[in-house]
């Protein structure tokens, strides 16, 4: 869940149409039309990625007159399916996957079970990955993969490139090679397995 209280605003006279904003927007809410960036106010989740990367300082974040609450109703989906999807992605349903919006795995799973097919759709529906824009791409990709979905990165975009390794997939040879250098792979697997299996604390909406 996220309360979106900001909106990107473009100063057209400064915009040179370089498309950097298009390439970094996690919800595809900004596009260059006729060499000027145009914001889709309905889609914008106020993350400021465009404002922070615009090379011409043509974008500012303005306060929305009416904040928008972005949230997926977890209770609208059979919770057993939510739990199953999360645990197949090796996540506890109540585990926080977006530290900025405190979005839990169950909300992303519910979004996917209700039809989200890409990280962009997940972010648009839940607000996850619209805070720091950095840390939560992998669990989102893991949940999509566990649901049997293979999303394609936005064409020519820099939003994301691909899922990467998890600790369960580290080759035994690598573990052995670096065993004396302070990397506790097998111990962390045991820890994360316990987290994945831990019972949920409550079913109220996240």
């Amino acid at each position, binding site marked *: 869940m996220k309360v979106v209280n900001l909106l990107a605003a473009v100063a057209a006279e400064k915009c040179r149409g370089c498309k950097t904003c298009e390439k970094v927007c996690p919800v595809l809410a900004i596009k260059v039309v006729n060499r000027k960036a145009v914001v889709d106010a309905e889609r914008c989740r106020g993350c400021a990625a465009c404002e922070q990367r615009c090379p011409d300082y043509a974008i500012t974040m303005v306060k929305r007159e009416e904040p928008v609450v972005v949230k997926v109703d977890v209770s609208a989906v059979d919770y057993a399916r939510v739990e199953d999807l999360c645990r197949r992605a090796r996540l506890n349903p109540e585990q926080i996957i977006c530290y*900025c919006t405190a979005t839990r795995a169950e909300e992303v799973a519910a979004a996917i079970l209700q039809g989200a097919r890409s990280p962009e759709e997940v972010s648009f529906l839940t607000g996850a990955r619209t805070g*720091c*824009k950095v840390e939560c791409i992998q669990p989102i990709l893991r949940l999509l993969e566990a649901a049997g979905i293979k999303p394609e990165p936005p064409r020519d975009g820099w939003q994301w490139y691909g899922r990467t390794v998890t600790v369960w997939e580290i080759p035994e040879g690598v573990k052995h090679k670096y065993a004396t250098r*302070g990397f506790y792979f097998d111990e962390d697997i045991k820890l994360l397995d316990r987290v994945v299996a831990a019972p949920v604390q409550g079913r109220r909406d996240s």
Partner: protein
Amino acid sequence: MRPPITPIPPRKSQYGIDPSLVKTRVSELPGMTSVLLKELFPDLPEVIYPGEEGVAAVRKATEAALQKIDMSKIKPEHSVNILASHHGFTLLGGEPYAEMLKTLKDVIEARTGCKNIRLRAGVGLRFRETEEYIKRYGLDKHFGGKAIGVAPIDQGIPIETEIGTLYGIRKIYDADWIVHAHNSDVREVHFHRQVDRAVKPFGMSYARIETRSTYHQNLGPRAANFTARAIFDSPFVQGKFAFASFLTVAPNGIIGVDADNDLYALNDRVTQIGCRYYGKMMTLFGEIDECIAALDFPCPVVYVFSAGVIYANFAGANTDLYDLDLPLPAYTWYTEAFYGKAGKPLLKDIPPLNPAIKMCVHNYAWTGYPSAFFSEHIPTVVVGQEQADLFNRDPQNLTYMKHAVVAETTEAAMEFAYKTTGTRKVLIFDGAMGGINVSEPLAELLLKKAPAVSERVESELLPKWLRQRGVDR
């Protein structure tokens, strides 16, 4: 008791309130004093900065360290990217790190004849932070306009590693050679656990979001830093790596510059410094029974400094952050992730945030890092409505103020904290150089506890920490 040390001044930045709004520093209030770190731990090394020579000492140390570096691979017609990170600019005012970067450029140019030397400065979660530093320290001018900040959402480049494909930032690697210009300050011990500290930027400030998310979500709290080693060891990066140059830092200041063509040799030395000197400070902070933590430094909440220890690490000082047998510190992102909807950890053995912190007075700290976990679990008073408003506009902190209260002035915030907590012990995170600003009762406690802490670290903890990291031989 000594008078307080002048703290690092507020800094103009888009991530903090205007410096003119910081009317009072916590160290200016009655009852505050300072303790020199050498009084606590006489074995701390001598520093070259702060000192009489100023940053000239850093230039001299950099030039001396670079004498042993083999630069023969760099030819006049080549290009070189000097890779920097935001963190260095937060150390002792930032000038020492900036001076090392300038010296690196000058020496490489003089030794190799190469003129195409660029600065690429990575960031954490504040994507324009190093742009601000590049201007502040005149790095754009020194590098002839070839100095830029890079961010983890910039265009990426796939890097094939022994654990599969990871992703770097394309502009980090768009030169024939890279020079890794960093520092040995420990900062995020809760994340890296002093494992491959010197290598970490390859998995962080030089890396794309996919890699950073791997670190913080996919590998686990003690395996995470392997992402950095995997990238650094890749044929792609090894084919570009020229050498590394580090400001070596102890809690009391800059102790020198260390450079090496072998990053892992340098890494082992950094591990020794980090465990020995910072380990003592953190262990001492773990002895504090109760206190008010006062944040008063131009950095995000988690990164404000006191004696080289950041607030995030003090929040975990009830546990031994260096002991790798401990899976989860009281604060790290994995720990935060494992708090369920009832507000309690999903596993019973997850330690709570340091119960010695009775209240946090947030006098001055920046946005740009998700910090609501702290205000949710530690009673927090924020000084000034302008600062509260800034946090309410930060996409990473939309709920920080949901859990905090606002005081009009620093004095009012501290009075409130004194009355409601009942403690007069105050630890100030204001970046004081060479010592720490604290209240008198806390100064007494620290001076009393330090000798036994030093002895315990030397005889018991340090040997274990070094053994766990394979650097005890």
